[in-house]
């Protein structure tokens, strides 16, 4: 998995928007700080073309300490969620955009099927399914092992 840095993000900004490198870097850095501030203040931050960040309140709950098995309380706390907006979803899903949800007719069962043809077009970016083995694989018979000259089970008494 690639790790993209703020610098790289800023470089793309420069190309797309004509901002200077320093401005772009400052913008990229500050933008995320603004998101954090916005979340503290309003519990929700929406960025058009990107998505929505929300602060979710998690209530305290009882649980068990994994190491000791003792009962313990997980304190109530905040959780940040992110939901991409429609534009972003489409952009991210682009390689798979040709797929559609299809209604299944009664009696059709896909569980465990690998060679059934699906009603979808598989184009470039899709990872190919492993082909079911058609040709028999040639397994070399191991050479018959020659019987050892000595008896496999020693007749001698076991060593003390």
């Amino acid at each position, binding site marked *: 998995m690639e*790790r993209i840095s703020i610098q790289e993000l800023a470089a793309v900004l420069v190309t797309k928007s004509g901002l200077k490198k320093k401005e772009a870097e400052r913008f990229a850095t500050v933008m995320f700080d603004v998101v954090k501030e916005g979340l503290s203040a309003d519990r929700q931050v929406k960025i058009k073309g990107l998505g929505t960040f929300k602060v979710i309140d998690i209530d305290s709950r009882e649980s068990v300490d994994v190491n000791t098995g003792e009962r313990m309380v997980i304190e*109530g706390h905040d959780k*940040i969620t992110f939901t*991409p907006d429609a534009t972003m979803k489409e952009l*991210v899903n682009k390689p798979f955009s040709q797929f559609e949800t299809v*209604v299944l007719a009664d009696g059709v069962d896909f569980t465990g099927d690998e060679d059934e043809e699906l*009603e979808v077009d598989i184009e470039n970016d899709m990872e190919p399914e492993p082909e079911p083995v058609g040709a028999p694989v040639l397994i070399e018979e191991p050479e018959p092992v020659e019987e050892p000259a000595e008896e496999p089970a020693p007749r001698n008494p076991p060593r003390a």
Partner: protein
Amino acid sequence: MTVQNFGTFEVKKKMERIMMNPTTGQRMLVPPKLTLNFKISPTWKDQLKNGGTE
């Protein structure tokens, strides 16, 4: 894509799966898709846990 002290955005692939509407009994095959996922950075997460609502 990771942003220091903020979090990580990751593209995840979801396998196709069969969904059923419990009311109508209609079954659908949802195709595989790519989703965008966000994971908060541990630094920020701790700040939230300790301070509660800032």
